[in-house]
C-alpha cells in the first residue's frame, strides 16, 4: 500500500531542462507553502508548533488550541505560580543573567529586573520580555519540550535565532507572533 502511494508521487520533471534569462531570476524561491493538515479538524502538532514548522504554515492554516500536544503556561500563570516554578531558575533570577545580550525592544535597564518582574507589566511593561520570560519558564519546566527548548528561547532573546539551518534570523515581530501560540 505504501509502495503504491509512493508510485503515485514519483518525482516528475519536465521533459526539457529549464532555461533561465535574467527575467527568470526572481527575488524569491518559495512563493507560498501549504502545510499538510490533520484529517480531523484544527489540531496542532509538535511539528507545527516547532519554530521551523510554524514558519512554513500558510496564513489560512487553523492555529487553535492544540489537542494533540501540550502547550506552555501563560505569563499570568507564571506570575502567580509557586509550586511549578522550575527550581533551577529561582524567581529572583535576573533577566540579564539568563539572556546576557539584550535586543530591542528589551533594554539593559529592564534586564536588571528579575524574570518574575519581567512577567508583570506593571513592573516591566514590555511584551517581548514578558513573552521571552514565559517561553523560557515553559521550556525549562519541559512544558514545551518537544518543540521549544531553553537554548532556542535564549537565542530568540539575544537576536540570534535561526529556525532552520541556512534560514534567516527571526525578527522581534516574528518571535512575538510565534511565542503567542506556544501557551494556553
Amino acid at each position, binding site marked *: 500500500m505504501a509502495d503504491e502511494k509512493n508510485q503515485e508521487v514519483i*518525482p*516528475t*520533471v519536465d521533459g526539457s531542462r*529549464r532555461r533561465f*534569462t535574467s527575467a527568470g531570476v526572481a527575488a524569491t524561491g*518559495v512563493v507560498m*507553502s501549504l502545510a499538510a493538515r490533520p484529517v480531523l479538524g484544527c489540531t496542532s502538532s509538535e511539528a507545527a508548533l516547532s519554530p521551523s514548522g510554524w514558519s512554513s504554515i500558510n496564513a489560512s492554516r487553523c492555529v487553535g488550541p492544540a489537542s494533540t500536544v501540550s502547550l506552555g503556561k501563560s505569563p499570568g500563570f507564571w506570575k502567580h505560580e509557586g509550586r511549578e516554578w522550575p527550581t533551577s531558575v529561582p524567581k529572583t533570577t535576573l533577566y540579564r543573567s539568563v539572556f546576557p545580550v539584550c535586543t530591542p525592544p528589551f533594554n539593559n535597564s529592564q534586564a536588571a529586573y528579575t524574570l518574575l518582574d519581567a512577567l508583570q507589566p506593571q513592573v516591566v511593561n514590555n511584551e517581548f520580555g514578558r513573552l521571552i520570560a514565559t517561553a523560557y519558564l515553559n521550556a525549562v519546566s519541559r512544558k514545551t519540550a518537544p518543540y521549544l527548548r531553553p537554548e532556542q528561547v535564549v537565542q530568540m532573546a539575544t537576536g540570534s535565532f535561526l529556525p532552520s539551518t541556512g534560514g534567516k534570523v527571526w525578527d522581534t515581530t516574528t518571535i512575538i507572533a510565534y511565542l503567542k501560540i506556544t501557551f494556553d
Partner: protein
Amino acid sequence: MTWIASTAHPAAQRCWGQECIVYDIDSGNTHLVTPLAAEVLRELQNRPCNLETLVEVVLQHSVNDAEPPALSEMQTALSTILDDLARIDLIRWSAP
C-alpha cells in the same frame, strides 16, 4: 558550504510555465516555488552542491540568444533560494 536535499524521498515536482509545485512526500506539505528554485532542488536531489557549482549549472541552462543573468545577480538569487528551501526543510547543509 555544501547543500543537499534533506527529505528522505525526493520531493515530487511539476512545472507549468513560471510556476512550479513541489510536494514533500515526507511532510505532506506542498510548496509553490519559482522555476529556478525547482531547478536548484532537482540538482540537490541528485548530488550535494555548493553555491558556486549551482551557479555554474544554472548558467549553463541560460538561454544563449537572450539576455543571460549576471553572475552576481545569479549568486544573490541562488543564495536567497537556498535560504528559502532550507526554511521549508527541503534542503540542508551537508557536513563536510
